[in-house]
């Protein structure tokens, strides 16, 4: 079962993740995500509502997307409090939008 579905709408690309995003899962996801994320997308949204674990590899993907599209076009939504804290410890306390 995949840990990611993608909704490619007009001007918005939404990545909906689920379960554990550990290093092995992220190795598979990373090229798929970075291939889809183009510089001209209006908005990239990562939905983590169904995610209970993120690895350092997933943090690396978030940073890569952030660097590619910029802070105005990237947001991470529906994070659990535990996951939000992981982002904070990782230093994602700059302009990235994490809700």
């Amino acid at each position, binding site marked *: 079962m995949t840990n990611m579905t993608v909704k490619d709408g007009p001007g918005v690309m939404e990545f909906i993740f689920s379960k554990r995003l550990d*290093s092995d899962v992220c190795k598979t996801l990373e090229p798929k995500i970075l291939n889809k994320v183009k510089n001209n997308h209006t908005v990239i949204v990562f939905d983590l509502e169904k995610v209970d*674990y*993120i*690895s*350092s*590899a997933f*943090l*690396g993907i978030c*940073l890569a997307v952030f660097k590619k599209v910029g802070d105005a076009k990237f947001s991470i939504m529906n994070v659990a409090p*535990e996951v939000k*804290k*992981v*982002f904070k*410890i*990782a*230093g994602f306390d700059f302009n990235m939008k994490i809700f």
Partner: protein
Amino acid sequence: MEIEPHRAVDDIMQKAVFAAAEFSSFDQQQTDKIVFAIYEAGFNARVKLAKMAHEETGIGRWQDKVMKNVVATQLVYEDIKDLKTVGIISHDKERGITEIASPMGPILAIIPVTNPTSTVLFKILSAIKARNPVIICPSKKAIKCCSETARICYEAAIGAGAPEDCIQWLTSVSREQTQELMAHKKLALILATGGGGLVHSAYSSGTPALGVGAGNVPVFIEKSADIPFAIEQIVMSKTFDNGTICASEQALVVEQETADMVISELEKRGAYFLSREEVPLLESVVWDNGRKSMNPDIVGRSAGVIAQKAGIRTPAETQLLVVPLDRVGDDAPLSGEILAPVLAFYTAKNFDEAVKICIDLNYFGGIGHTASIFSNDDEKINQFSLLMNAGRIVVNTPSSQGAVGGSFNTLCPSLTLGCGTGGKNITTENVTVRNLLNIQRITRRRLNLRLAQFDTSKYLDESLDARTIGRLYDNNY
């Protein structure tokens, strides 16, 4: 993860911080599984790593380095394995305080040349038990053996489910890079074991640091001591890894009435007493007058090699060079710390004079570190201990192994010995995983009953002094 030469410090720290973030969500069981895997892998590699360390540095004896690796794995693991280091670790209902253990974040581990692989093993086990990623920064003279130690630990950790990059190690070392790492805003702590300059740099970096101080361990063989036993212990300790442990004995102080017996027991066990003429010969080889410290080239060399360098003829069975001295201080350089099988020797008229010599030795470059006494008189042991400025006062114990803990006493086994403020450190403890946690406290409402029943408007009355307020405050309590 191996750090290639010239990798940017920001990149190293980014990886460490991401590892810290992932690690923060691990529970105790996951953490303990990783710690066990590291312990087992490190322990299984103890001989190979000891031989590598000896071959690369030329310091000490590989057989003793095996024992150091055993302390750093088996004894450290035994000490920490059952510790709670994740989440709620204690709850005191009466005081209303619940303690939560949180990781600190990335730790930079500075590794000395004298105990390279054992210090790497110790620091990795301790850091990981507290869920802190660790960056190993080895001595330039011990890069290969430290890298291999870290690699073995990292592979075991990853196999047990640890976050990627939870252990990183530098494969080339430059002063600039080390200083940049030390001062990096994302670094949580520096665990600095090494020479004074490096420890001072760590403290000056602006990052919290746990450092160590230099030792100059006086050993008082008090007249009630079991002298043959004491000398056996001392010779075993001072020759262990050719004297490279900073807690190793540096000077023996004996009372006149037992001096002959001490000398005879030392000679029986391979000690060579230098003549007055030989002392300056040894001094010129062991002491670096320009640096005002021991010559690094003799650190961890055998007594025979050092004697040969000094042009002193010693019997083939010589284990230890003993230097009779009557002064302590700059004009008697061999009264300072020498990390080699060289011991200063003082004869005192009586107990008081012996203790005064020990105080001088303790304060001549070894404040806060370790002092040692052999005695069977509790009162004398306490008198001596109260006058020493030492984080550890070891009794009837070889000081090298005694100070490190775990084998001759119940001190925490550690390769990083705090020396208190005298040694410019924040703790006198044997540093362990407990020092690598942020402890948060949930504090429930528990009223201070005296304050609650006290009329606080009385504080506004300037005519009421501390004694009057104190009486009212304690009324009916």
